[in-house]
Every structure is written in structure tokens, then in C-alpha cells.
């Protein structure tokens, strides 16, 4: 650096000042966006972490012991994991064939189908949950139909069950899964598949060794994103689930609203976050990807 000498000392200073000005401008332009993320993501996350290790003014892991041992917390954590996992697997299982089909078809109808899927994605989750409340009500159309063919008796309620929560959460998540999967599946190289077929490979073999390796990353990533999103749901179990479907989000909200103490809610959040990080790490190891690639994928 120092060995570089400019013929004119004034020009050198000028260049340096210009470079500094550029850096300052760049920083100022990035500032609002960076500050928003710091204020509403980094600081709150740090605050939640801090609160979970803090109780009555001293450092302690008491909150974590409570979460793991005191009823209803372990149960709620388990509910969250199982409901989110079932939602992720069902959504991806339903969306994958659709996405594979749409990704392989270029045409007016395929575009319309994709646009309709996207349209349902943008409808408020509350509208969808309300629709399920109507459909699954005791005197709702579905129950009437089931009673008519004598599957259920007049007293049974479809609402406030795990099935109701799952159906609604899957309906909310399928469009999201489908859009993420289509983006990944558009990149499948069909020439490779045709080549494999020409060389005499049977369909199961083509699927396992030519198609799956090309979409594996996208499928695992989508499942992970859906799982993470689903584990943070609190409106769906609150509106459609019974006492057996309480998930962490609901409990955190009621802890905050009823006790005005963020200790236990923050601890639940911390456990959730650590669990998600661990799971994401495992999933990324399995699929051979990185967080950065996920960020790029979600962003594209």
C-alpha cells in the first residue's frame, strides 16, 4: 500500500477523500434497512435470550428447568414438534407432485394453475381459518355430509381436534411449499433424464439416480422452511385446536398477556429457536447445503 506513489500529492488526497465519501454514502444508503433488521430482529432475539437466563434479577437456568419439567410445557413443546413436522411432511408430499408437474409444463393452463396457487398464498390466514371453522362446525356442511352417510353421530365435533388444525395448516402451507418447490424444480435438466432413458434405464432407476439428486436439495430445504414456519404458528391451533393442540406460540402469547412476565415466554422461544437451529443444521448436513444457499434460494 505505502509503496504506491502518486505523482501529485494533491490528487492522492483527492482520490482518498472521494473513496471515503463513497464509503460514507454507501453506509448511509444501507443504514435504514440495516437499522430496521437490528432493531426488530437482532435486539429482540438478544432480549429473548437474556430474559430466558434472567429471573428476579439474577442469572439462572431455573426457567429452562421449568420448561422441561413443569406441566404443561413439555407437552406443549412436543405438540409443536409433532404438529409442525406433520404439517411440513404432508404439505411437501401434497405439493411435490403438483410442483413437479407444473415445473415440467410450460403453457397457459400451467401458468393459470400456478397463479391460482399464488393467489391462495396471499389470502389472509385468518380468512382461511375462518373458512375451516365454518366448514368443520357441528352443523357445518362437512359434518352434515358425514352424518348423512352415518360416519359420525350428531354429537361429534370435527372442530377443536388435531385433524382440524392439521388440515388447515396444510392448506395454508401447500401454496408456499409449491412455490418454493417449483422454483427449485424448474432447474431440473430433462436432457439428463432423456439420456438415461435412451440408455435403457428403467423409470424407478431414473427417478432415484437422475431426478431425485437434482431436486433433493430443494425438497429438503422446502420441508425445513415449512417446518420452521409451522412451528411458529399460533393462530391455527388457537382457533381450530382443543386443549390437546396448544403450541408454543399460543402459550407464549397467553403467558405474556396474562402475567406480563416475559421470562417463561422468552425461555420457550429460546428452546424453540435452539431446536430449530439444531434441526436446520442437521437438515443442511444431510442435504449438503449451507445457510447462505438457503438465504439465496429464499431470496431468488
Amino acid at each position, binding site marked *: 500500500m505505502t509503496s504506491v506513489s502518486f505523482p501529485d500529492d494533491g490528487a492522492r488526497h483527492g482520490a482518498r477523500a472521494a473513496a471515503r465519501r463513497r464509503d460514507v*454514502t454507501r453506509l448511509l444508503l444501507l443504514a435504514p434497512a440495516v437499522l430496521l433488521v437490528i432493531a426488530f430482529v437482532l435486539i429482540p432475539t438478544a432480549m*429473548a435470550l437474556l430474559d430466558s437466563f434472567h429471573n428476579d434479577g439474577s442469572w439462572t437456568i431455573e426457567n429452562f428447568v421449568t420448561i422441561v419439567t413443569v406441566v404443561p410445557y413439555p407437552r406443549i413443546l412436543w405438540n409443536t414438534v409433532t404438529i409442525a413436522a406433520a404439517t411440513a411432511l404432508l404439505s411437501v408430499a401434497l405439493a411435490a*407432485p403438483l410442483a413437479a408437474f407444473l415445473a415440467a409444463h410450460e403453457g397457459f393452463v400451467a401458468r393459470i394453475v400456478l397463479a391460482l396457487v399464488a*393467489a391462495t398464498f396471499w389470502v389472509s390466514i385468518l380468512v382461511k381459518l375462518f373458512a375451516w371453522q365454518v366448514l368443520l362446525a357441528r352443523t*357445518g356442511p362437512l359434518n352434515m355430509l358425514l352424518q348423512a352417510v352415518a360416519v359420525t353421530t350428531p354429537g361429534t365435533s370435527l372442530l377443536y381436534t388435531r385433524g382440524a388444525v392439521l388440515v388447515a395448516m396444510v392448506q395454508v402451507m401447500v401454496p408456499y411449499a409449491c412455490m418454493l418447490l417449483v422454483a427449485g424444480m424448474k432447474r431440473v435438466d430433462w436432457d439428463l433424464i432423456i439420456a438415461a432413458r435412451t440408455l435403457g434405464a428403467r423409470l424407478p432407476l431414473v427417478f432415484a439416480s437422475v431426478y431425485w439428486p437434482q431436486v433433493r436439495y430443494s425438497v429438503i430445504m422446502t420441508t425445513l422452511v415449512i417446518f420452521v414456519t409451522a412451528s*411458529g404458528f399460533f393462530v391455527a391451533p388457537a382457533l381450530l385446536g382443543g386443549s390437546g393442540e396448544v403450541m408454543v406460540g399460543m402459550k407464549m402469547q397467553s403467558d405474556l398477556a396474562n402475567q406480563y412476565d*416475559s421470562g417463561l415466554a422468552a425461555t420457550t422461544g429460546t428452546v424453540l429457536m435452539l431446536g430449530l437451529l439444531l434441526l436446520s443444521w442437521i437438515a443442511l448436513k444431510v442435504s449438503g447445503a449451507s445457510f447462505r444457499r438457503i*438465504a439465496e434460494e429464499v431470496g*431468488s
Partner: protein
Amino acid sequence: MTRGRGLRIAGWSYCSLILLFLLFPVAIVVPASFSGSQTLEFPPSTWSLHWYHQVLGDGRWLASAFLSLRIALFAAAAATVSGLMVSVVHLRFGRVTPTLRAFFLLPLIAPHIVLATGLFSLLLRTHLLGSPTVLAFGHACLALPLSIVVLVNAVETIEPLLWSAAASLGARWWMIVREVLLPTLSISLVVAFLLAFIASWDEVTFAVFIGPISTPTLPSRMFSYLQELTNPSVSAVATMLAALTVSAGLVSVLLPRLRRRPVRITP
């Protein structure tokens, strides 16, 4: 040949089934909202507009809608302007690095319930809990990844030398932004604004955790009504909400196709 055709028929039938599953539940809300009976029913036995009269005549729903509108307009504007500034950096000062891009996607990836809990504790101490302004800024942050993705992708189609060319002809930066950048990005700016607007307009988690309580936002009020499950007037609100969201979504999808790009700048 027949096998390929069978596969195609199976594919389209599957598409229709999934679309039915996705659309049908939303579609039944519309007729249910025009029901004439006093309880919620589908299919309705008589037709009337009385849920609409009830909702539109109720000052509380209107106050919530107005609050949501103000918050969403502010959040969308803030997210779009911040996103535009990031895209200017991308165009003018070298590409935004993948790490920085990942950083900007954090609001999308981080669990919102954890963020809301941290914010609750923070705002409780600073006596800002329930402040609409804080909620608006929070929504701006949640919408930021959407506007950044749209605008940075749009700016990638602009030739960076265009800026230098304009500058060498003596244009000041604000002139370049006004005469070159904004016209080129106009459609993407509208799309970014609409996506951010919907993200805030429909947002439930922050609104319920840290939002105003006496006059909650529209989704927050709807959530508390749905928990009670006794008031069918929600069906009218749901129909209007869905109509608004779908039309905003349609505009953001159709707009880039309706108008061709004003100037083709990519080589």
C-alpha cells in the same frame, strides 16, 4: 404414447384436486357472508346484506380498518424506500454481498413469535407497548426482505454504466435517480410496495403480541372475534379482506405484464 397421455391426465386431475382443496374453503366464505339467517350457515337458506350493514355500521371495525391501513401504508413506504436505497448500493457501489443479502432475509427466516416476545419485554420496559408507530416500524422490518428481493433483482437488469454515463454528462445524483432509476424501476417499485403492504395488512403475530389493544389492527380484532366464534359478521370482514388481498395480488402479478418495460437497457 398412451402412457404419456395417461400421465398427463393424471397430472391435471391431481392439479384440479389440490386447487379444489386450496380454493374451496376460501370460496365458501363469500356465499356464507351473504346469508340472511342469524347464525352462520353454508349453504345459506336466505340471502341478505345484513352482515355487511352490521360491519360497515360498526365504528370499531372501521377504526381497526383505518388503523391497519395507516400502518400498512407507512410500513410499505418505509420498506420500499429502504429497499430502493439498498438496490442503489447494489447498482452503484458494487454488488450487495451474499452475506448482507442473507442478513436482510433474517426477518423472513427468524421465528416471529420469538421476535415478538423479545419486543414485548423491551417495549414493556420503555412503556411503548401497544404503540401503533412501533408496530408500523416492526411491519416495515418484516416486509423489508420482500421489497429488497424485488428491487435488487430489478436493478440487476440495469446497466451500471448508465449511472456513470449520466454523471459524466453532468447530472447530479438526485437527477439520475429521478430521470433514470425511478422510471426504469417504476413497476418493480409498485410491486415491492404492494407486497410489503399485504405483508403488513395481514400480519397477525406482531399485531397480537405488541400491537395496540383498545383499537387493535384489523387482523388482531378478527382474531379475537374468531376466538369467540359467535359473531357471523366476521364472514363479511373475511370476504372484504380476501377481495382486497386478491386484487392487490393480481395487480402485482399482472402489472409487469401489462406494461412493457419503458426502456430496454440490458445489452
